């Protein structure tokens, strides 16, 4: 088959292990920097692994970490060397094809989600996250945004809180009281 074919929606971004991203004979913007970063990171890991137990014995706790980080250093170094020799993809830029503003924005949203999850609680944080991200992505009216965001949040909340009984941070919303109210309502209705 044509190794370049990766489905219509793909743009050399890698859809699976069978069809990884990138180009076989060119390098993408930032690819070399990434490979160098991996090499550097692997070297740090190797140093750290040496510190675990040194080279005292083949069965020491540090032997497998040392072997793996050594493999990482060699593999990343080889990748960096090979990548350095390839010509840059002419039609791509870092800002347009690898790390568009939208991706950075969403990484920011997710960090904010993590920061707010504990203090604010799951329901308000998720409502905020869904509203903002759907508004940004769909660019439709606020009515549509609110309806879709809150509607889907309600479904998710019921499924996970009630069906899967997942504990989520309650935060400022009196969730337990709400569920209790709901239960007593149902119990009252059944009686």
């Amino acid at each position: 088959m044509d190794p370049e074919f990766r489905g219509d929606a793909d743009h050399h971004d890698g859809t699976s292990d069978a069809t990884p991203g990138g180009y076989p004979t060119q390098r993408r913007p930032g690819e070399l920097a990434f490979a160098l970063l991996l090499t550097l990171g692997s070297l740090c890991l190797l140093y750290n692994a040496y510190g675990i137990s040194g080279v005292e014995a083949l069965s020491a706790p540090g032997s497998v970490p040392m072997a793996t980080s050594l493999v990482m250093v060699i593999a990343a170094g080889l990748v960096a060397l090979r990548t350095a020799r390839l010509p840059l993809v002419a039609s791509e830029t870092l800002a347009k094809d690898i790390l568009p503003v939208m991706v950075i924005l969403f990484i920011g949203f997710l960090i904010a989600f993590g920061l707010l999850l504990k203090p604010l609680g799951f329901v308000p944080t998720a409502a905020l996250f869904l509203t903002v991200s759907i508004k940004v992505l769909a660019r439709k009216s606020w009515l549509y945004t609110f309806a879709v965001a809150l509607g889907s949040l309600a479904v998710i909340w019921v499924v996970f809180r009630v069906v899967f009984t997942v504990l989520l941070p309650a935060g400022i919303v009196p969730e337990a009281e709400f569920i209790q109210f709901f239960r007593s309502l149902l119990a009252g209705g059944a009686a």
Partner: protein
Amino acid sequence: MDAFWAFMTVFTQPQLFGLVAIGTFAGIYIGAIPGLSVTMAVSILISFTFSWDVYPAISLMVGIYMGGVYGGSRTAILLNIPGAPSAIATAMDGYPMAQRGEAGQAIGVTTVMSFFGGLVGIIVLAVAAPFVAGFALRFQPRDYMLLALLGILLVGSLSNGSLVKGIFAGALGIAIGAVGRDPLTFTERFTFDLKIMQGGISFIAVMIGMFGVSEALSQLRNVDKQAVRQKIDKIVPSFGTIRKYLPLSLQTSTIGVVIGALPGTGGDIAALLAYDHAKRVTKNPETPFGQGAMEGLVAPETANNAAVGGAFIPMITLGIPGDAVTAIMIGALFIHGLNPGPMLMIDQPDMFWFIVGALLTANVFMLIFGLTGIKLFTRIVEMPRSVIIPLILLLSVVGAYAVNNSITDVYWMLIFGVFGYFMRHYGYPLGPVILGVILSRLLDENWRRAIISEREDMGRFFGGIFGSPLSLVLFVSVILIFVSQTPLWAHMKARVFGQPGAHDHKAGIDRR
């Protein structure tokens, strides 16, 4: 007789039967919606089902797995967007068929062939696994170590990408799995003296990050892509059509089972190899490949579903995952206190026969749901991505948080999500990372056991390898993977098989 009743568990308990049905139904849609993958769904599901009993949790996952592998074909045919990685090859001939107005027929044949492939996979699993498990009892620690290595290496060597990147990904996974306190001596490893690192990195956070967040971030690019609606006519294919492709489907099912059973490689690779095989053996297709050849649909779709049954063989008998999804299922079994490996088959054969029964049920439901409900299907698949992507991200956060009720896990998920995003873009496979994480402990423990039993002597260790046929075969396979990537291999191949250029040229003519 016990085995028979264990096999029947799923049929006698309505709750489990229902969960398999729900799982399969959900799986078909998860597989079909581009951006939602089975790997992602199963990794998020672990964190939601860990408070359940193990049977219901496995029922749901098995259903999603079976349905999801099939579901991707629908979007591949209708929209030319493979809904799941295993359907990449399906789009090549499925979409041209849909353009000709034969979408219904394409979906029908795909469904029946997926069922057939799935069935072959399950039968092979049921017959082969008990043998493999019996055989596996004789495995030495070094054999486990070599098998784990082989699994991590195979993904990189069988895919289209670079093996070196695959090796890096696998080693990275092993390193991630080693973080925390060493289980044997309690020494801290890769903790950088940080307290939060001592407990290790939650593998669920790594999985959800790599398969959920990174995928969702990649999909941000495709938000505005409009789906093209296709007219769908009669779906149920005629018996004659099925009979015509039966010989091919048997061959490609076999490819699927074997690739699935090899540690590490799953349906996506099986489908591509089967497509290649169909192209080679079909001398005179009615329609050329790439323009809507039926063979081009039959081959990948039988293979990817056959790979499901295949992937369970090493998972259950050896504790070594057959692909990324079974890697995650091993994680799920760990959480439920089960330890997949030859002892599981001996101590709890019920678990194995239950999985076989659940797979079979899922396969039948896949056929039923596959041949019905097409109108509803087109509606759901057209759900805008501007809504789906935020929902995936939300579920990923909830999933990562829920296992340990820890915000730290959410951050790990984010870190690995962003890291995985770059890995995807630069051609590093993600499967070996997950395999490495799951196999890290097995590799480490078996290496240390092996080398201690050889009194820390490398010479004796290799002596042991060369003294046992199994170890030798595994060792040679590992070496061959490396050799196959060197220029020496290409040179040898050229000498043995004649000029590679001439051979390829001839094959090219045959195809036309």
